[in-house]
Every structure is written in structure tokens, then in C-alpha cells.
């Protein structure tokens, strides 16, 4: 069976419920044609329609004076002043990366970049937030190496630097790794383009790669539908990324914008041509006549359904006026990419698709998006939640601090991540002021005083232990990660990676998480300008941890002339701990997981008032402190060790209570200051000690030579990955 010979009742195989099928018949006033059914089944799939999450995403705050484009378009856009705008977005490519890690991650990068230059922006940076099963399993090592080289292979070659990211490990990701990629672009206000197709008689021009059979239905339930197997093992829905084609596509599109040749533009993603044509028409309140014979196909004998649904990479659909068509085609030729006018904008809102002079689809363009179902799925608090909270870590009277620190520095999620980020070009464009390896990365905008800081943060375990608190904590952590560079939290994108939404427990986790994240964003005054939801991250009925990831954009103007870095601590510098301290916040901590082998309990809550004050003060201190480092995984001890290793200097701090070294209560920053003046009285500040010597010295509690700490920390990933 192929898409084109689907029996009308094949909707079940395409993952459509009977109710959804009836809705289609209702809309069309007749049973759908095969191609039409395929289009609805993909466009109404969870992936494309957000039918299970939409009802809850409304909870996020999305407004602020500097928001130019909020959620809904391909990317969020914020105003940086002086005509500068930043467009950014985050996307997941979890399932494809499990099937084929290199290509899955590579095409993930390609896809998120298209979301950015679709807006008229030049993509200038990428971040990757990735999660795998434990590295003692060869399969997980294979997945990590494959994903990292895929991101490197595509990102480096397409010419967009990868400025940072994060990585975590847990059993629940063993059969379901998470690969979330965030991209950011810069543009001048007048370059902003939207996807709406307007102007009767305007042409829809398909730009970029030819259309092949690869990836048909890859993004949707179709991938698992039987026609996929029937169409032969020869056609896996794996897609091969071509960064060279995308690079040419980027340059061509940017020149099209510069010359004012596009009315609207839309990237091709899930459901390929059918999605791009219907969405641009719908967004413009128009219709479109599409001629599939004009599409440049890679393989002979492709059926209309295959051409419509193909998810071949590196393609864009531009709406141009008939007068400009020739100039557009000429420009495409200059950049050595294919271009073909495949459609005409019409009034009346109908999408008509023809092939061989035969009508294969005729439907209301808006119905594919606007009429998609919305579900208010059942939610219920998991029965296991209370036991989980009750089973929290038992803290011993005393611990071997030095040995605990050794074990934590050797953890792949806490050790040196340069094995990963040194495979990424993170310097291209000469904007990178604080490179990966610190907290948030900081980039300048040449020709201005402006700086942008970004941090991606997630915390699967804590969100599993308490979705609301966990969701709030990752937002607060991301805020501090950008604040230490001098930037103030400005806007957020989020990627919600969850299990099966048909399970009430998963929906509960989702709603709680959103509540926690939304609350933190409100307290920080940052709008959510875009995001992505990835459901069905489950294997054999076991769901992953609820794993939201935030991409926090921070903004500073002017940027600190010498922003803090971990490697700038020197002999005699005084080290302070800023922010409220709770010595007993161990649930979900690295210490509990690594040293006590405990992954239960209830994490501490956030404190909006104190948290906001710490973020504010941190961003101010960034203009004079040589080092600022937020206290994250591993607590105070690891934060100090990271500074000592980077700066190659020892430190002496006296804390009587060992728990203060490893507790992970939020809203804390280690501040290194040249003088011993109390930083400020707006937040609690404790003078911890002074840098000097070559030992990380916790007095009574123990000590560890910097050299030893450094070699353990540096070897954490290489010794596992070779």
C-alpha cells in the first residue's frame, strides 16, 4: 500500500481516531481522497498539531515590550534596540537520533536553522541539549559519539558555530536519547519576514534540495504505519543531511530578503510540501493552487502522495510576485540551488493540488492547522509520588569530602565537557566572548556595545522528583547562568520532552512542569517566545523523566569589557557565596546520586524574591568581578573546584558543616572579588575564604590537590569515550 492507494478507512493505520476521521469528512463534506487523508493525518498528528499540549501552553507568559514575534511563528523574535532583532527557537530530534544518531542530530540542526532564516535572520549560533543512558553501555557511547559528530558535521560545515549546550545521563534515556537543538539568528528590523502568503496571483517557489522518497511521514505517526514497510526496506525514513545545500540555501534566502524579493517564506518540515503550502496560505488567509509536476524530484516515478508528503531536507517555499520571479530564479542559479514555481496564491482559502492534470487534493487550507483537534487529556498525580518523596537521601554524620569530590568530578555530567564542545566550531563570526566551558556563553554583536548570553538548562531527575519545583529551578538556573556574564534574563524558549500523553500521570507531570516554569518566568519578567513539545518518549511502556529544557536568552548593553570567566581567579582573591543557603537540599543532587546512590526525595523549592535579587546583583557584579560562577550540580564544592581547575590556583575555605559543600539549594553564586568589601546588602553574602596555593582546602573537612582534581575532571569523558 502507498499513500496514494490508501483505503479511506486506513485512517487508523495512520494514527487517526474515528472521531478525527469523521471531523475530516465533516470538513470536506465527503470522504477524503487518499492524499488528503495523508495530509490530515500528519498535520493533525501530535507532532504537528500540539493537540495534547496546546491547551496548557497558554499558561506561559508571552508578553513583554521587547517581544516582536511571540509563539506561533517559526521562531520568537525580540528587540535589542537600534534596529537589531534576535530570532531564536529550540527543537527536538529525539526519535530520529535514536534510529541514526549522526543523521538524526545533523538533520535536527538543519531543521532548527531553517526556522531561524525563515524569519529573515542570519543564523549565528547553535546550542545542543542532549541526554543519554549511562556510558558504561556501548550502545549509549555509540549514540553520544554519533550525535555529537552529527551536530559537529552539520553545524561546522553549514557555517554556524555551536556556542554551548548541556548533557545529562540517566537510565531512562537509554532507549530514548534526547537531542534538543537551539538556534539564534540576528537581523535588522526591516528584514523581518513572516510565513504568510499574500497577494492573489503571487507565486510559490520551491527552493533548495530536490524532493525524494526519504523521510516520508518521518515526523509523524505515519513513520510507524504499515505503508512504510510496504514501501520497502529500501526506503527507510532516515533522512540524510546536506549542510552544503543548506549553506547555499541560507545565503540565497538572505540575499532574496536583502533585495526585497520575498512576500513571505516558509521552511519545509513535517509533511513537506503539503504543510508548507497549506500553512503559508492559511497564515495569509488565502488559498493556493499547487502543481506537483513542477516539483524537482530526485527519483523517477514518485507518486503525488510521495511528493506531497516527502520530508526531504534543505527546502524552503518562498512567496514572490510574478514580476520578481525571474530575478528570484536567477539568484537561485547564482547560488547553485534548484528553484521552481510550484504554486499560485489564490483567494477563497482553498488548497488545490494537481498532478498529471489530475486533482489529488482540494481542501480548506486553514482546516489542516486551525481545525486540528484539541485534547484536554486526563491528568492524575502519580501514585508513586509520595513514596518517591519519602525515600529521600539519608545524610550521614560525616563524609569523606575529598573522596566524594573525586567521585563527583569523575561523573560524565559534571566532568570536563570539552570532549564534546571542542568538536564544534564555537568561534566562527568572531562573536564568541565567553566560549563553552564556563556558565552561559556570551557573544558580542559587532559594531555595537551589545552582548547576548545564552544558557540551555534541564534537570530530568529533579523534574521527575517534583515537576513543578524542577521546572521552576531550571528556569532560575538558566537565569543565573546568563547573569554571571552581565546579561539580564530577556526571553525564553522551551522544549518539553515527555512520555506518553495518553497516560494521566504524564499529563500531570506536563501541567505541573509548565506551572513551575511559567511561575519562574513571571517572577523574572521574561516572556516565553517559542518552544517545542516532544511526546511519546517512552519505551516498552516506560516513560522518560519529564524533561523540560529551557533556552534562556540574556541581553546586556553595554556588554562588560572584561566579563567574568572561570579562569581569572588569582592568588589572594577573596571568594564569596551570594544568595540564600539551605544546607539540606539533597534530593536530586549529584552528591545523593553519585555518592549515596539515591535518586529520590523532594527537591527544595525556589524563592522568587530572593532569587530575583541574586540574579539582579550578579548581573551588576559581572562588570567588576573577575569570576562569577553559579552553584549548580555538585554544589559549592564542585563550583569551587571548577574555578580552581580553570584558574590553576588553590583555595582555602572554612565551612564547619560538610553539607554546605554539596547541598544544591538554588539561587547561589560564587563571587570572586579583588577586595574584601562586602559586595552588597541586597542578598545574603558569606565570605568563604581566599584563593592561593595549589590545594582545594576545606580545612577540617579535607582537601584535594588542584592537579589531582584537574586530571580526574579532564578525564571524565575521554576515559569513557576514548
Amino acid at each position, binding site marked *: 500500500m502507498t499513500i496514494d492507494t490508501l483505503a479511506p478507512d486506513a485512517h487508523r493505520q495512520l494514527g487517526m481516531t474515528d472521531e478525527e476521521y469523521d471531523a475530516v469528512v465533516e470538513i470536506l463534506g465527503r470522504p477524503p481522497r487518499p492524499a488528503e487523508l495523508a495530509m490530515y493525518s500528519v498535520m493533525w498528528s501530535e507532532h504537528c498539531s500540539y493537540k495534547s499540549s496546546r491547551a496548557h501552553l497558554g499558561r506561559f507568559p508571552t508578553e513583554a515590550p521587547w517581544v516582536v514575534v511571540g509563539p506561533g511563528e517559526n521562531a520568537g523574535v525580540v528587540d535589542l534596540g537600534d534596529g537589531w532583532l534576535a530570532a531564536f527557537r529550540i527543537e527536538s530530534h529525539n526519535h530520529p537520533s535514536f534510529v541514526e544518531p549522526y543523521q538524526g542530530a545533523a538533520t535536527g540542526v538543519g531543521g532548527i536553522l531553517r526556522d531561524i532564516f525563515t524569519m529573515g535572520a542570519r543564523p549565528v549560533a547553535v546550542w545542543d541539549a542532549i541526554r543519554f543512558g549511562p556510558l558504561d553501555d556501548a550502545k549509549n557511547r555509540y549514540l553520544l559519539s554519533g550525535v555529537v*559528530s552529527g551536530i*559537529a*558535521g552539520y553545524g*561546522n*560545515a553549514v*557555517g554556524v558555530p555551536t556556542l554551548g549546550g548541556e548533557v545529562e545521563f540517566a537510565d531512562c534515556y537509554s532507549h530514548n536519547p534526547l537531542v534538543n537543538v537551539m538556534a539564534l539568528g540576528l537581523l535588522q528590523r526591516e528584514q523581518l519576514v513572516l510565513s504568510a502568503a499574500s497577494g492573489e496571483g503571487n507565486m510559490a517557489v520551491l527552493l533548495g534540495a530536490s524532493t525524494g522518497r526519504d523521510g516520508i511521514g518521518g515526523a509523524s505517526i505515519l513513520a510507524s504505519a504499515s505503508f512504510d514497510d510496504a514501501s520497502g526496506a529500501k526506503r527507510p525514513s532516515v533522512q540524510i543531511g*546536506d*549542510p*552544503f*545545500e543548506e*549553506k*547555499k540555501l541560507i545565503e540565497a534566502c538572505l540575499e532574496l530578503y536583502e533585495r526585497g524579493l520575498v512576500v513571505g517564506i516558509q521552511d519545509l518540515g513535517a509533511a513537506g510540501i503539503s504543510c508548507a503550502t497549506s500553512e503559508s496560505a492559511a497564515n495569509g488567509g488565502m488559498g493556493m493552487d499547487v502543481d506537483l509536476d513542477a516539483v524537482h524530484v530526485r527519483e523517477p516515478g514518485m507518486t503525488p502522495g510521495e511528493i506531497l508528503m516527502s520530508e526531504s531536507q534543505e527546502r524552503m517555499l518562498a512567496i514572490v510576485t510574478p514580476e520578481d520571479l525571474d530575478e528570484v530564479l536567477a539568484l537561485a542559479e547564482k*547560488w*547553485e540551488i534548484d528553484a521552481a514555481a510550484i504554486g499560485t496564491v489564490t483567494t477563497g482559502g482553498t488548497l488545490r493540488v494537481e498532478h498529471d492534470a489530475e486533482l489529488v487534493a482540494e481542501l480548506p487550507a486553514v482546516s489542516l492547522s486551525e481545525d486540528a483537534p484539541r485534547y484536554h487529556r486526563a491528568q492524575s498525580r502519580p501514585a508513586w509520588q509520595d513514596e518517591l518523596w519519602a525515600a529521600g537521601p539519608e545524610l550521614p554524620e560525616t563524609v569523606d569530602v575529598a573522596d566524594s569530590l573525586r567521585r563527583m568530578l569523575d561523573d560524565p555530567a559534571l566532568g570536563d565537557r*570539552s570532549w564534546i*564542545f*571542542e*568538536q*564544534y*566550531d*564555537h*568561534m*566562527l*563570526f*568572531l562573536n*564568541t*566572548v565567553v*566560549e563553552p566551558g564556563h556558565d552561559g556563553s556570551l557573544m*558580542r554583536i*559587532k559594531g555595537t556595545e551589545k552582548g547576548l548570553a545564552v544558557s540551555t538548562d534541564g534537570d530530568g531527575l529533579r523534574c521527575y522528583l517534583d515537576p513543578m519545583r524542577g521546572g521552576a529551578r531550571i528556569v532560575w538556573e538558566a537565569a543565573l547562568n546568563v547573569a554571571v556574564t552581565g546579561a539580564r534574563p530577556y526571553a525564553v524558549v522551551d522544549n518539553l520532552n515527555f512520555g506518553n500523553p495518553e497516560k494521566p500521570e504524564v499529563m500531570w507531570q506536563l501541567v505541573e512542569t509548565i506551572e513551575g516554569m511559567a511561575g519562574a518566568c513571571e517572577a523574572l519578567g521574561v516572556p516565553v517566545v517559542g518552544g517545542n513539545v516532544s511526546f511519546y518518549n517512552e519505551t516498552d511502556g516506560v516513560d522518560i523523566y519529564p524533561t523540560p529544557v529551557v533556552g534562556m536568552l540574556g541581553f546586556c548593553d553595554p556588554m562588560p*569589557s572584561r566579563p567574568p570567566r572561570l579562569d581569572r581567579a588569582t592568588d589572594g582573591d577573596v571568594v564569596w557565596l551570594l544568595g540564600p543557603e539551605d544546607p539540606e537540599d539533597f534530593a536530586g543532587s549529584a552528591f545523593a546520586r553519585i555518592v549515596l546512590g539515591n535518586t529520590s526525595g523532594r527537591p527544595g523549592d525556589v524563592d522568587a524574591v530572593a532569587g530575583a535579587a541574586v540574579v539582579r546583583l550578579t548581573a551588576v557584579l559581572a562588570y567588576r568581578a573577575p569570576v562569577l560562577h553559579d552553584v549548580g550540580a555538585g554544589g559549592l564544592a564542585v563550583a569551587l573546584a571548577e574555578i580552581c581547575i580553570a584558574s590553576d590556583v588553590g583555595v582555602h575555605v572554612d565551612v564547619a558543616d560538610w553539607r554546605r559543600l554539596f547541598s544544591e539549594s538554588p539561587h547561589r553564586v560564587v563571587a570572586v572579588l579583588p577586595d574584601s568589601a562586602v559586595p552588597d546588602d541586597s542578598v545574603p553574602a558569606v565570605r568563604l575564604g581566599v584563593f592561593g596555593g595549589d590545594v582545594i582546602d576545606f580545612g577540617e573537612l579535607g582537601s584535594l590537590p588542584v592537579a589531582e582534581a584537574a586530571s580526574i575532571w579532564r578525564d571524565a569523558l575521554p576515559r569513557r569515550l576514548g
Partner: protein
Amino acid sequence: MTTAVVVFPGSNCEHDVVYALDALGHDAELVWHRDIDLSGADGVVLPGGFAHGDYLRTGAIARFSPVMAEVERLATEGRPVIGICNGFQVLCEAGLLPGALVANRDLRFICRPIRLRVESTDSVLTRSAAVGDVLTIPLNSYEGNYVAPAGTLAEVEDHGVILRYCGPAGEVDAAFNPNGSMDSIAGVCNDAGNVAGLMPHPERAIEDVLGSSDGRVLLESFVAGIRNPVPA
């Protein structure tokens, strides 16, 4: 007359090179790979990136771009011609520089600052530096592993090596060889010294805010070379 920075499809460091030369007060212009007239050019930079996606072999397809005939003419006339990273690979493929570049020893892309020792000042890239200088400059490549057949290598060693990977004190040693390059070679020049290539990116080390300014002396050499070229 301005300096031509050649743009192949897939190049991506061209704007950075123009920015860096501009920071040194030198004019440069982007030139598309299909242009066949460089008569206005006083020197040429082949920038880094992934010309033609690095498909087939890095630099292999680019060397046949229409513009390369002009680049060869300028090179033989003694005009300064440098290749950075991918540009270096193109010059080797074109036979304007000896040797070739293959995959890094560990089969991983490497993006990080590394140290270089200046081996010779008889090249358009190093004339303003001093032998023995140790420079910190970012490397950014997957195929940065310099190889040459025995005979060629001997000649290169004799008069073609301009930069080697080294340690903090300038020590040249396997431990400081990031990618397995023969004899730790990071940069070479032709006999006349007017054509030179290197894997690291001097344009990424021209401002302290970016971590290092050590790349300046190399680009300043190039600019000086343009003002008074080495006779061919």
C-alpha cells in the same frame, strides 16, 4: 587595488577575514569563485570553511573553480597568496603548495586554541614575526593532519616549513601535536615564499576580547607582503 578574499560555495570564514584585515587597516573585497578577473587584486586570501561541502576530498573541487586560474597567475607572478584552513587545503590540491591534509589522528573535529612556533620568516605569512615566536591561535578542522610523501617532505623540511604545533615553551613534541601532522607541521610556503598556507585561523586571534591577538603578526606579514611583494 584591494585584496581578494575568494568565496567558494561553502566557504564560511570570508567575512571574518575581511573583518580582521580591516582591523589592520587593510582593504579587502569578497570575490565569487566564478569571477575570472583578479587583475584588480594585489593579493589573495583563500578563507576557511567547507568549499563544496568538502565532498570528494577537502579542496578537491574548489581548485577547479574558474577563479583559480587567476589565483595561480598571481601566485606565479609573486603576489602574496595565502590559504587559511580550507584555503590551505585548496592550495595543496591545486599544487601551489606541497603535501596534503588528511583526517585528524583521532578522527574528531578539533576547535580550540593551540600553540604554534614560528619556524621561518621567509614567507608572506611570517616575515613580520621572529623565528621561535610562540603564538596562540585557534585550530578549527577535521582534516588538518599534514602529510607528504618522503621526497616532498624532505624538501618541505628544507625550506618550506613556516609553523609547527608546539608546547608553552615552544617545544615541538608528539604531546603537542593536536592532529598527527607529520613533523608537527601547521603551515608551509612555496619556494618563493609568496604563497603560504596554514591550518589554524589567524583571523580568529586579532583581539584580546576574543582570547588572543597573536594572529595579528601573521596577517600583518601578509599586508606587509602586499605593500612590497617578494620578487618571483
